């Protein structure tokens, strides 16, 4: 199978490309990046061709593309790839507005190509094990969720509202909202949130907490932030606690680690040895392309985006937003 990559603006592009390299039946046929320096370096690293023009890149023979651009450019690249009949894996968030997300879904449907959204947390082994426990009825009825996704400030275009469309709340909320929707099979109906900038003296949000209600009455809390500084032992977390009528179970997707103590500025580091969820995402996408069926759809991306955007709205308007 021939795969192309569109932009290496998002750091996940590297781990996704690493994932492609591990698959014997997959060829990375080219990289489009109009940041020529970055694109050429990536092409050199992965021993493939660099394209600085999107139109030239999309003329190449390939089955699918992976879009890892700045958030604001997801729409442009997805629409172009869909019109060129390429199946698509798009980095999250799907878009920066509901209107754009809906248009992307529509154009992909019209062109009969799959639009898969990159939610790698679904491929974490402990996250999958908890899904299995829930599906087997071992937690009973779900009463509530507690979730966190807190990491380091990624800097660069992520902290430019024009290119990212939002800060930590947009960047991180979508992951755990997707997991909660996946576990429960229901949609969020109301969002109440506080969003602010606390940790980095930047002109974009780096902290947000929200309280969510699902259709049927399950309640949830979520903590999204870029609160982890470089000296903290680990990049961050992705946790979910499910309170069920039979038992409560908590998972941290990044919990599997060694404690490494050294005498440097960062005296303690957590060395992660858990499964590579990015590779799981890529392997799943290749199977989806073969079967022409998304496992994480554009609609999943849209519903998560709705919640993140509602969090901003709730904080600005100081009221609960009904979806």
């Amino acid at each position, binding site marked *: 199978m021939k795969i192309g990559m569109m932009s290496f603006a998002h750091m996940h592009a590297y781990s996704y490309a690493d994932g492609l390299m591990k698959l014997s039946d997959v060829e990375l046929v080219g990289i489009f990046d109009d940041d020529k320096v970055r694109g050429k370096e990536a092409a050199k690293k992965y021993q493939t061709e660099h394209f600085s023009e999107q139109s030239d890149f999309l003329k190449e023979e390939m089955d699918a593309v992976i879009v890892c651009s700045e958030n604001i450019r997801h729409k442009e690249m997805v629409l172009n790839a869909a019109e060129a009949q390429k199946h698509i894996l798009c980095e999250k968030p799907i878009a920066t507005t509901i209107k754009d997300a809906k248009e992307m879904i529509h154009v992909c449907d019209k062109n009969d190509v799959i639009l898969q959204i990159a939610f790698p947390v679904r491929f974490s082994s402990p996250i999958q094990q908890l899904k299995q426990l829930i599906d087997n009825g071992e937690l009973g009825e779900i009463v509530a969720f507690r979730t966190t996704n807190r990491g380091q400030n990624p800097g660069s275009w992520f902290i430019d509202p024009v290119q990212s469309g939002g800060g930590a709340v947009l960047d991180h909320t979508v992951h755990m909202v997707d997991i909660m929707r996946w576990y429960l099979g229901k949609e969020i109906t109301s969002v109440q949130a506080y969003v602010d900038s606390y*940790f980095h003296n930047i002109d974009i949000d780096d902290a947000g907490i929200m*309280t969510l209600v699902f259709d049927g009455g*399950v309640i949830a809390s979520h903590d999204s932030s870029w*609160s982890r500084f470089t000296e903290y032992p680990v990049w961050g977390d992705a946790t979910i606690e499910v*309170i069920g*009528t039979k038992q409560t179970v908590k998972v941290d997707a990044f919990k599997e680690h060694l404690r490494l103590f050294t005498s440097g500025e960062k005296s303690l580091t957590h060395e992660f040895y858990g499964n590579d969820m990015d590779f799981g995402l890529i392997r799943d996408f290749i199977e989806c392309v073969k079967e022409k069926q998304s496992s994480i759809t554009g609609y999943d991306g849209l519903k998560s985006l709705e919640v993140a955007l509602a969090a901003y709205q709730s904080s600005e308007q100081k009221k609960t937003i009904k979806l």
Partner: protein
Amino acid sequence: MKVIYSNLEKIDFKSTISEVELLNVLDVQALDKDKDKTVIVSADNKKIDQLPGTPTVYIPYESLPENYRGKDNVHVYFDLELYPFFEKVKEVFLSKNKGVFRFRRHVGQHQTESIIIEDMFVMTSLLGKPEDVEVIHSKKEVNPQHTIVTILFKQGTMAHMEYTFSGQERLELEWSGMKRIIEFDSEEMTPITPKHHTSLPLTYSVDAILFGSHQLDAALAAQLEFLKELINGGAEA
């Protein structure tokens, strides 16, 4: 005389310096003989109206009966405030910084919302006055009950306080501030494993009660009533 009512499982007598006598039953006649004594007895054993003289009474806020209100000799205490770990949190916490505060309790199925009120009281001493409070409860007909309190404090901190009303007590706390993160989980910080051998770290000394209690005067009563009204505004999902 000082009479301390307490959940005795929470008392760490080994770290207590004050002289205190543990009573299984509050014997009113026996107490009359020694007026300088400090005694401690289970909070289930409330007999304030029968006590000789006017003893100073110390009682957990959650166990405070209606007929104790308005009496000058009653002091209430909030267990969160007395835990040694929380003392340490106050030491290392830098209140001038804004940040995200996350607090989580598992409490007994039969505990009431008073636990939330007293925790909020303690939190306001750390984080300042609340500007906005939102409360949401899980469905009443489903157990365990879960409550999420979302608070924006005037000084800028945003907070979640969450309660699951089931089983054994567990307490988790996280503070994310500028270049400062505080984490505590009573399950992880237990110094003895298997955990059923100890109540640590969720214990406190008798001294902590004697020095950390608050006289239940009109100002305190009004403040607690205000917090109660905030909590009672919560909706069921």
